[in-house]
Every structure is written in structure tokens, then in C-alpha cells.
């Protein structure tokens, strides 16, 4: 069997049995981490000299077809200086609330990645500054599409989906930062600033 990444013995030394198990799959090292200490493990991996996993390549989630297996949040880490990869998986029991601590404070790129996982799986990231849907529209009520109990075509009829889609206003809930008006906000005319502050969006005369 190909060798485990050298980070694994270091992790075991630092965290003991928080690291549930580690294996190698297709040349990639995967470490399963307990949910309650996941953020500490990731922070240790990012900040410790010798580990320095400063790049979060991807943050996603998996639900397997077998209903016995838990959901897993997958963190794909990379150390740019050492050119090393590591995959951390956090298993989430379906019986308990699907929550895990956000890594937004460690890697800013986790912002939208965690929003996508929330949108598609319903996993809540505690501590995320702006956790809302990103791929589906904000007021989407059908559920979380990539869950296995979500039917391929959605829960509602096509007519109902069309009606809800036509009624959704995709821009209504955008933050000012996303609209790139934040930097220029103080230069806007006063009445426009007031309207934006009140949350007013477009109107049809």
C-alpha cells in the first residue's frame, strides 16, 4: 500500500484519537476527523510550521447511496510551499443536526464553498458570516437538491416550480458587497444611499 502522508503521524501525535482513521486512496491521503474538533485540526494543519496547508482547494460534501453511511464534509487541502495534498473528512451523523464549524476564518475561499454545501446538502456552518443559498435562489423552498431523498426532478410540479422561479427576484437579497457598491457607497447621491440602505430594489413605474 502506498505510504500515508507524513502529516498523519504528526496529526496523531497532536490530536490522538480525534483522528479516527487514515487511509490512502488512489495516491491521496484521507484522514477522518471527529466533528467537534474538526476546526482545531484544520487550524493546526494550516498554522503549524512543517504542515502549512495554506490553500483550501475544495470544500464539499458527500452523501452515499447506502443510508447507513453518514454524510461527510470533505476538505481538500494543499500546501503550496511543500507541494503536498491532504484530504480531511468529517462524518456527520444523520440523526444529529447537520452542523459543523465554519473554516471561513482560516481560508477566506471557504465563503462560497460552504454556501454551496449548505445550499445543496443543508449542512449548516456555524460562524459563517453570510450563510445563504448560492446556486438556487434565496427563497427556494423545495429542499436541498443533492440529498439522496430529494427526487431528481424536485418535489413540486413543473408548473409550481416555474411559478416560483418567475416570482423569485434573484437580486433582492444580494449584499452590498456583492453588488460592488460598497467601496463607492460614500460617493453615491444621498437619495440613492437612502434607498439602498432601506433595502429598496428596482421598481416598475
Amino acid at each position, binding site marked *: 500500500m502506498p505510504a500515508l502522508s507524513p502529516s498523519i503521524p504528526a496529526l496523531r501525535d497532536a490530536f490522538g484519537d480525534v483522528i479516527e482513521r487514515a487511509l490512502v486512496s488512489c495516491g491521496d491521503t484521507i484522514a477522518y476527523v471527529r466533528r467537534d474538533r474538526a476546526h482545531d485540526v484544520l487550524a493546526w494543519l494550516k498554522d503549524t510550521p512543517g504542515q502549512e496547508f495554506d490553500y483550501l482547494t475544495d470544500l464539499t460534501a458527500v452523501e452515499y447511496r447506502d443510508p447507513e453511511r453518514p454524510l461527510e464534509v470533505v476538505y481538500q487541502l494543499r500546501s503550496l510551499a511543500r507541494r503536498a495534498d491532504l484530504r480531511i473528512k468529517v462524518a456527520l451523523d444523520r440523526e444529529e443536526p447537520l452542523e459543523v464549524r465554519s473554516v471561513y476564518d482560516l481560508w477566506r475561499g471557504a465563503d462560497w464553498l460552504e454556501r454551496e454545501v449548505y445550499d445543496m446538502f443543508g449542512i449548516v456552518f456555524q460562524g459563517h458570516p453570510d450563510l445563504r443559498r448560492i446556486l438556487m435562489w434565496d427563497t427556494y423552498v423545495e429542499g436541498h437538491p443533492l440529498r439522496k431523498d430529494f427526487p431528481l426532478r424536485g418535489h413540486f410540479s413543473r408548473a409550481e416550480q416555474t411559478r416560483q422561479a418567475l416570482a423569485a*427576484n434573484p437580486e433582492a437579497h444580494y449584499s452590498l458587497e456583492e453588488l460592488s457598491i460598497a467601496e463607492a457607497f460614500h460617493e453615491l447621491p444621498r437619495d440613492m444611499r437612502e434607498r439602498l440602505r432601506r433595502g429598496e*430594489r*428596482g421598481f416598475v413605474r
Partner: protein
Amino acid sequence: MLQPYIPILLLIAFVVANAILILGLSHLLSTYRRTPVKLAPYESGMPTLGDARERFSVKFYLVAMLFIIFDIETVFLFPWAVAFAQLRPLAGVLILEAAVFVAVLAVGYVYIWKRGALQWD
């Protein structure tokens, strides 16, 4: 006295009448099918965000103003040149007068240059 200008006036009158005729006919003969959404401003299919009234940078006004001043200076030099041709004996005085005029404006030019009014940013 106004004889040579009659063709131009006729042309202007014809152009104006033509424009009014075309716009008026299309207004009278057309059907309007206005809906509230159709009249809304186009913003790539999204509801509009604020209006289009933005504050202009004052740089444009500054450039326009400076242009006018130096353009008028040039305009004044044209009749001076014509008069110069007709007043040959007074050549020295005329050149001196024009030099004083240009010098006054040149002082103004150096002033705005040093003040940075010609810098775009």
C-alpha cells in the same frame, strides 16, 4: 442683401419639415402596445437597482472651460489677421498689440499649468 442665404434657409426648412413629417406619420399610424415591464429600464433582465443619475466628475467641466477660453483667444486672432492684411503701415503696433493679448493669456496658461489643472487624474 439676404439673397445668398435663401437656399440655406430653404434647406433648413425642408429638413425640419421632413423630420416632423416622418416622426409625426409614424406616431399617428402606429399602434402602441405598452406594458409596465416593457417601459421599465433595461438592466439585463433584472429589476433595476437605483437610477442612472450619477454625479459627473468636475474634470469635464474644467476641461471644457479651459478649452472655451483658449478657443475664444484663437477666434479673436482671426479678425486680427484679416485687419493686419489691410493695415500694413501699422504693422509694428499691430504685432505689439497681439503680443500683449497673447502674453496676458499665456500668463493665465502658465498659472493653470502650475496649479495642475491640466492633469487629468
